[in-house]
């Protein structure tokens, strides 16, 4: 086994991608990449699925040696007049971080009538995930002023781009909480600048896919006194119930929500059974159980899908590959997985080649992961493939459905069952 502390085929992409993904969730926003041309690619990748104006400072040897501040000033103004954005983020890259151009000073000097923020994107400072965190925090730092931690609203921190259905998930969860008398809103999901200014008026922040949003929550806790909780991604009825209960508890909600929770749970089960018709015996559940199955994903996502499949679909997962760069959390992650399914083999790695080798050696018949893992698998087998995390652009969906919450149980079950039987039976 290669020593991945020395050289790694990293599962993480560049910080610029994470930052750009967050900025792209703001209506009519622009990014100016302060760096060379190659560093524009992650911003372009973010703009494939979400509207985002892109500009860059054409950094070259001369600007690296003598400073590129003039170019930054010029491009900020260019971008403002070219696309009239409502918000602009100047994203630094490795080169501009090292030479230390004074971006904040230049932003101030430009004195544009829109918010312009500086966010560190450089790959030696940030990964895709930490890039998301710094962008969320930077937006709140810049735009939020008058906090109110008594305002009766719950902020759900969006797991931006973690999966193809993340937007549907957070919108659905907000609506679901409203049904329980808890007013909630998703953050960083098709937001306007004014929406973001209001983020500091809330009683509680909820992280649903840790660590996405952790920095922003800690910042809001310190500056505005808004507490936060971190909950498991609410995939499956059990964790959805836990999600609602935990938030109600954190808000010290005195209403009895148990009857509604039971009603929701019963309704989903009824819908499931009615949807089965009277041919349950002929369904292929037992056959599916015999197939070799694998989940590959970041910790929260892998665990969430393992729980629903094992606890609610009464099926098994042979292997879980957790994509994580954090060595410190490895034991904890493993213990959580074993608690759900003691016989499941657990591989924790931050290296794509280890993911590839594991998939190609184990040859799963059912694979839950991203398109990257699917392409790894395709070299040696052709599994039934269900996309659960980024990137997931291979299949086209115009009408996406949530996989989180009660509704998500059935949507995911449909995908699960149909994809597997169409592949094998």
């Amino acid at each position, binding site marked *: 086994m290669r020593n991945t502390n020395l050289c*790694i085929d990293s599962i993480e992409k560049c910080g610029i991608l994470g930052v750009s993904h967050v900025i792209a969730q703001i209506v009519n926003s622009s990014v100016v990449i302060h*760096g060379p*041309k190659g560093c*524009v690619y992650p911003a372009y*990748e973010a703009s494939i699925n979400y509207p985002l104006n892109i500009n*860059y400072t054409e950094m070259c040897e001369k600007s690296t040696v003598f400073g590129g501040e003039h170019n930054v000033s010029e491009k900020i103004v260019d971008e403002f007049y070219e696309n009239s954005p409502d918000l602009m983020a100047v994203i630094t890259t*490795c080169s501009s971080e090292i030479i230390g151009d004074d971006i904040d000073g230049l932003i101030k000097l430009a004195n544009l009538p829109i918010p312009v923020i500086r966010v560190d994107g450089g790959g030696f400072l940030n990964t895709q995930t930490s890039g998301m965190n710094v962008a969320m925090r930077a937006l709140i730092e810049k735009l939020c002023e008058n906090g109110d931690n008594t305002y009766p609203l719950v902020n759900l921190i969006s797991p931006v781009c973690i999966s193809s259905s993340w937007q549907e998930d957070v919108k659905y969860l907000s609506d679901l909480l409203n049904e329980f008398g808890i007013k909630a809103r998703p953050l960083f999901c098709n937001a306007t600048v004014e929406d973001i200014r209001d983020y500091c008026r809330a009683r509680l922040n909820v992280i649903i896919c840790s660590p996405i949003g952790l920095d922003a929550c800690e910042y809001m806790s310190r500056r505005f006194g808004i507490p936060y909780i971190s909950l498991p991604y609410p995939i499956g009825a059990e964790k959805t119930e836990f999600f609602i209960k935990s938030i109600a508890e954190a808000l010290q909600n005195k209403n009895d929500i148990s009857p509604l929770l039971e009603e929701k749970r019963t309704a989903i089960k009824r819908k499931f059974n009615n949807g089965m018709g009277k041919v349950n015996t002929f369904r292929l559940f037992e056959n599916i159980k015999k197939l070799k199955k694998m989940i590959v994903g970041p910790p929260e996502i892998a665990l969430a899908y393992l729980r629903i499949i094992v606890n609610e679909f009464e099926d098994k997962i042979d292997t879980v590959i957790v994509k994580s760069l954090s060595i410190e959390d490895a034991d904890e992650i493993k213990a959580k997985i074993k608690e759900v399914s003691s016989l499941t083999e657990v591989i924790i790695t931050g290296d794509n080649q280890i993911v590839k080798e594991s998939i190609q050696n184990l040859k799963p018949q059912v694979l839950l992961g991203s398109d990257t893992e699917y392409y790894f698998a395709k070299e040696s087998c052709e599994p039934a493939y269900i996309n659960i995390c980024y*990137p997931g652009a291979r299949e086209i969906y115009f009408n996406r459905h949530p996989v989180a919450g009660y509704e998500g149980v059935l949507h995911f079950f449909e995908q699960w069952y149909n994809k597997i039987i169409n592949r094998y039976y």
Partner: protein
Amino acid sequence: MSKEVESKIAMLSTLVKEVKADNLNIRDCIDMHQFCAFWGAFDILNYFNDVVILVHGPSGCLGNRRFLPAMGHLGECDNKPHLSTSFTNREVIFGGEKKLIDSLNEVNNQYNPKIIAVLTNCCADIIGDDVEGCIEGLPEEIRRKTIYLNSGGFSGKSYRRGTEMAFKLLAKHMPMDMHTSDKSDRNGEQKSVNLFLRRWIWDQTKQEEINEIKRMLEMIGVKLNKIFNQGISIEDFYEMQNAQLNVALCLFFGMGLFEELNNKFNIPYSKVTYPMGLFATKKWLNEIIRILQLDVNLEEIEEVKQLEEQRRKLVNEIGKGRKCIIWTQTGERMLALVKLAYELEMDPIVVGVEPSIVKDKLPIFEKEVLEDGLDVKVFASKYIEDVKGLIDYLGDPVIFCNNNYFPNQTVFKYRFAHNPVYGFNGTRKIYQEMFNALKRKSNKYSLFVEG
């Protein structure tokens, strides 16, 4: 309107001359096919199945390189190791030389490749890690198989420069003793060429193009020596020195290698590129015939005669002198489409020309436009509304484009990445597609027609 349209029209040769003379204040464009030098160098070294690339710097650049899944790419992705020394703050401050040395040992132990190629990205270059020194200090076994390139994108060098740098590096390490035959005269032995494919081509389309090129070469009595193709081995690469000529389907991409092979082994290369359409294919083959001094007359080949007949029919169908708009990426494909338009006796105008790409690909434009005299009108705008204004002004032009914004117009939309375009077979397919396009206006209800 006519004055406004006319004021935006100039000749391509004027633009190329101005770019060459550096008279224009050109800002770079965001063309996602043209990244930085690091990407160019990586792409070339990554063609080889027995070269392992180790990037000295942060891993972000490599994560970005696996971009095809994010674009919903059809069938496959580059699954080869994308290894880096994964710089963090620590290496940027204290240097990453020790990590590089340890990593090189690790890569050699794990993969034992024929070649280990070290590419630096911005960080390692700016902090000034002594990559050469690190390699010098390695044990002999690893040192002699390790090559390196300072390829940080901060240098401002383009993707193309990166490919040239990589080719130069590879050619430098190409041993002379792989030269197994005498190129100058082999008494009747069949002459051979190396083929360089185009860049954005995959799957079945690529195989069909290779088959077609092989068939055409056989037609003139030439065999294919080696193809510079994904998955090539270092041995095959070394054996490229045994060909009498190098030919490319996209000279812009292959020229760096050809120049090196020419300098080092005196192998000439054909500067005629993009055999798309009957005339261009004949020109491409005739140049090979000329350089290799073959006794072949293409005009006597039955297939050529048939295609010429088809061409005449198509010209009649289109109408001689009919206006045509060409809207595609600036570069060889654009020039090839201009030639195709002339072959079909149309009067083309190119829209959306990017001066910065003309600057980056200047050798191609110099050769085709300034030396060979290919010229065409260019319309100085890339905005859809302006192009629509141009269409109204021109009447009923044929529009060559990748994305169709033009309902109720005659649109020739032929996806080059997914259709074989080269050679006589490619010509036949293009002609047929053009016949089809002429028979129908683009349907405004089609989901693939915007607006």
